[in-house]
């Protein structure tokens, strides 16, 4: 199993190279074709046309597009994303500060989404044909009909203002100071510094943005799981289990669910990727200092090096999630493991 998983990961890594190259080239090209000028945007009073020309040279914007791309790519291979035009700092520094926040948020949102999706799917199946199913089915329709950013605003209004259960600004209560950065992940650092107040505050601040992201993936998971369970429940092994006198709930959980979960698992991989896209607006609304917020700043200021870098990081994260899901799929699906064996 471990060998197969490693084999799969290596294969995915090789496949990722051309994908990343394509994405980077596409992002690079599209950004340069836009009729917008990042240098002109950041010119201070007193600057002249000569200053403008010099700055274009300093940022390499005077060169041909292929030249610019190759220079950027060469730097990238050395771990250098270049310097931000707007922030006047290395892009890597900006990303290294924002990425942990987004990873924490997405992970938490992902767990919430999967939890809601699976429990909801099971709930829909168990209550099939009854009013419970209707309620859950309608709620999935509502969840899917409303985009994430609107959920973010609704959650703020209902759980932040009207019923002030959760905080919704930033990552920490105003009277608490940041723990010493050990891993860069606030949640982990709070736990490592044995500060329960920090840990609770960080979790409370993550709740609403994570929920807004979770609502984006949960309804599809619920529906796919219910459909898979409906198909699985008519299989022979389920009938056999019934004949053995096993209770209906136990049949669902122990026999039908593991088999019905495979299509849901595939979907989790795809939805997990989409979740990163959702962070852009959700982070802005919740003033959450992650990659999404950074991307908004970069787009507003046409900060090309930052936009390129963040887009590429998103791509890497999506590919990474897909690879992890493939490994999990391999672990839970014996047929795939058998396929991998020599005849």
């Amino acid at each position, binding site marked *: 199993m471990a060998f197969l998983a490693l084999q799969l990961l290596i294969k995915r890594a090789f496949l990722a190279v051309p994908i990343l190259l394509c994405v980077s080239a596409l992002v690079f090209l599209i950004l340069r074709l*836009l*009729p917008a000028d990042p240098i002109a945007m950041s010119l201070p009073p007193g600057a002249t046309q000569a200053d403008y020309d010099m700055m274009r040279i300093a940022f390499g914007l005077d060169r041909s597009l292929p030249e610019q791309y190759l220079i950027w790519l060469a730097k990238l291979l050395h771990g250098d994303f270049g310097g931000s035009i707007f922030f006047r700092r290395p892009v890597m520094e900006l990303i290294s500060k924002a990425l942990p926040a987004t990873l924490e948020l997405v992970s938490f949102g992902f767990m919430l989404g999967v939890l809601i999706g699976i429990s909801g799917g099971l709930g829909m199946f168990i209550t099939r044909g009854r009013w419970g199913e209707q309620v859950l089915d309608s709620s999935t329709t509502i969840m899917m009909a409303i985009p994430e950013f609107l959920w973010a605003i609704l959650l703020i209004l209902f759980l932040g203002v009207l019923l002030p259960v959760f*905080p919704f600004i930033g990552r920490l209560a105003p009277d608490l100071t940041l723990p010493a950065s050990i891993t860069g992940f606030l949640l982990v650092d709070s736990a490592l510094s044995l500060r329960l107040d920090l840990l*609770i505050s960080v979790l409370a601040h993550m709740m609403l943005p994570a929920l807004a992201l979770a609502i984006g993936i949960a309804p599809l998971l619920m529906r796919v799981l219910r459909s898979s369970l409906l198909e699985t429940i008519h299989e022979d092994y389920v009938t056999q289990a019934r004949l053995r006198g096993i209770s209906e709930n136990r049949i669902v959980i122990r026999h039908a669910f593991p088999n019905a979960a495979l299509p849901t698992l595939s979907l989790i991989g795809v939805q997990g990727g989409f979740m990163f896209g959702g962070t852009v607006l959700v982070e802005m609304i919740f*003033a*959450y*200092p*992650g990659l999404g917020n950074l991307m908004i700043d970069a787009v507003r200021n046409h900060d090309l090096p930052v936009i390129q870098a963040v887009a590429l990081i998103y791509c890497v994260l999506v590919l990474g999630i897909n690879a992890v899901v493939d490994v999990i799929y391999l672990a839970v699906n014996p047929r795939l493991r058998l396929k991998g064996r020599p005849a």
Partner: protein
Amino acid sequence: MRCSFHFTSNIITRNELERGLLMTDFNRRQLMTLGAGAAALAGLGVPLDVLAQASAKGQLTIGFPADLPTWDPNARTLAAVQSLYKLIFDQPLAQNEDASVRPSLVTKYAFTSPKTLELDLRTDVVFHDGSAMTSEDFKYSFFERQQQPVPQGGRKLDTSFIWRKVTGIETPTPSKAIMTFSEPMPSAVAWLYFLASFVVPKAHLEKVGVEEFTKKPIGTGPYQFVEYQQGARLVLVANEKYWGGAPKIKNVTIEFIRDPTARVAAFESKRVDVAIDVPIREAQRLGTQTGVTTSIYPITDIVLLQITKNGGFADDKARLAAHHAIDKAAISKALFGGFAPTISVPAALGSPGYPTGYEFKFDTAKSTALLKELGFGPDKPLKIKLASTNGVFPNDFDTARAIVQMWKKVGIEAELEAIETSVYQERLRAGTLPEATLFSWGNAAADPEFYGGYLLDPKSIFSAFKSDELAPKIQPLLIETDEAKRLSGYKEFHQFAAERGFTIALFQTVKTVVHTNNLNIVKHVNGHILPQTYSFKS
């Protein structure tokens, strides 16, 4: 000395309007006690002080709309974040509430020749690390830093462009600095309290380097840096040794909340004590609530149409017709609650460059007549393009739409296009702007050079209208050292530009500040938000 001037501030304050039991108050208290959410929270063991109102602990929390790109205060000239730099750093000069100039680190200044500016510095100022601020720090901040080589792939400080005329700074004593310029720079005094002109500690910066400095900045300002999270918040503590007296509010947290709806929600849920730049309608609504004070007031920033001679605006009459057709007062009333004073020239009312008593009239008959002279009218409209950002400043696109409708009535058919700021900048640089573009221009110093001097000087990178008639009028003003002559010159210049259809100024920008009643705030017409001037009511 420079003139002191006062703006006509139209400020509303709804202080503790008693309207019975408000729903929000009821919900907050009752539901926190009885609601299922609170019960669940208690069950989870979440301490309620995690959710408590910040000011309950003697701390001020402000919901601020913008974050700063870097903690090097000399690096960028972003108007939106100058208030944040002013918390930690000081400028040589400062401004009063009415935008008039007052001493700060510099106690006295005078041009001893057209190219020499002498400055006396305070002797009792110390940086947050305890070291004394001297003329060497001044020299470093305004001359030496600008001369330093730029690292590979790096960029010059913005102050390098602003202070490029400085040829040297003499420091005969620790409290005296003499600036010399390559050519007269009458706006130098205004620049000493404008963008990016902050004094930084030479010894400390040279010791730790820029990178370390920006991680924990040190200045002479009223607050000391405690913590900063990019895109999230800034935590400050009062500088008890501040030369101007320690701030009354000891702990300040700035929460960076870009989304206006979230800023309103943060205020309503009492997670911030002050919310800046909330939409006017929301500000008015919040002002009716018990315990809330709303201030809506015009500031020195302006909104105007950047116009060109391109396409349908080649003829002066077409541009003048377009200007006469805009009912600015109606737009102000409809979109800004009437709080945005209309302006006839690109300068704030009452500022030194505004021609006293001058008004460019809203006159549709005159507009129609001018268009008729050119052969246009409602039946045969003049076709032009109007570009506008959408959401960059309050009601930008709605303002543009209103103008399109007003123009339509007199016979100007404008095709409205939504653009990004970066697109505007690219077109401005390339000279491809359409006939008109709605634009917001910031000028906290309110000096006329930073209005017409930048917006109408054909050599300026910010000017859209390039006319040979403007250059001979503006160039002498840029080096005029007789202050009275300079100011009267700008008044005439601004009026000339409006009467010839070289500019279409619309109105001043409106600032909204919503805060709790337990707080005294000071409103600055330059738009700055300065918690060092605030206090809690006893």
